[in-house]
């Protein structure tokens, strides 16, 4: 199991972006991460379909310390990730050294939205996120008309 102190680094990075360059800069950073760095993952999800998305996130959240997450496929075209306890927010609130660090960045939860949207939308899926602050629901849905890029 990976050490959770890297959540402090992720949080510090988000603060750095907004304090130095503003809110749009961090959204641009997240979207670049999704559309550029994670492009191979998006392609993998397109090729493997919802089952591969569900498998990936189920395994991924199981590898994060302190999370309580249930991944399901409510229908043939969608994947629901029910984050009952977010491992990152829990670490930032409850870990041994939490008191010596700032609280979760006010936009912390938005990174999941922007990274995933930018990663998956070119490949014929939508991504929605509801909730936040320690628990949320995330949904990948295969869209009927994938963009031109995704079918090439």
């Amino acid at each position, binding site marked *: 199991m990976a050490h959770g*102190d*890297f959540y*402090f680094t992720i949080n*510090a990075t988000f603060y750095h972006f907004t304090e130095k*360059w503003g809110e749009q800069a961090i959204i641009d950073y997240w979207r670049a991460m999704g559309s550029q760095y994670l492009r191979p993952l998006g392609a993998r999800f397109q090729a493997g379909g919802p089952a591969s998305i569900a498998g990936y996130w189920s395994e*991924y959240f199981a590898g994060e*310390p302190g999370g309580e997450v249930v991944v399901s496929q409510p229908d043939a075209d969608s994947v629901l990730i029910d984050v009952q306890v*977010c491992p990152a927010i829990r670490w930032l609130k409850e870990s041994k050294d939490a008191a*010596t660090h700032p609280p979760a960045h006010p936009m912390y939860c938005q990174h999941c939205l922007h990274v995933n949207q930018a990663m998956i939308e070119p490949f014929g899926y939508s991504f929605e996120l509801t909730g936040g602050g320690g628990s949320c629901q995330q949904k990948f849905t295969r869209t009927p008309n994938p963009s031109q890029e995704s079918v090439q």
Partner: protein
Amino acid sequence: MIGVQDFIRYYDWTFEYIRRQSGEEAVEQYWAESIAFNSQNHANVLIQGNGLQGMAEYWGHTLDSEAAGFRAELKEDYYRIDMYECPSKGSLIQIDQEEYHDYCQHCMGWIKPIMDQAGFVIDHEHNHHGQCWWEMRAVNQAGEDSEPPIRDAGDVRLRENWQQAQHDRWLGSRSVDPKNGV
């Protein structure tokens, strides 16, 4: 989500993203400000408060740590780390990723500002292949800016694969490598 299990690859990519967007100085500023005194503030608090002992608390000081690929030793007047297999750089080597051109630099990038504030100087060298050594000592204990002698059989500089690739070195917290500005 950006998780901790594969965070290093995102970290490496983030260095390069900042460099592309804002230049090399912005990367150094990110390490010196937000990594040192926000991300690693738990280390900062320990070192500011307890000096060498705080370093030992943060990095660990038992031989058990060798199982994690490094050895750390608290001596009377210095604290030393010999890193044999850096898990961070090692994970990038394993996936053949080098988004940023000088990943290893980030450790000096955040540790030096903390040591500067706490009144310690650093001797350090890394070989960009997951091996490095560090010695931290109080400014008033600092002698000549010469490389410390080989300490014992566990000194990483004696490892067969130490002499590979490019080495970057600092003595008395000053780079002896022209690329780092001295």
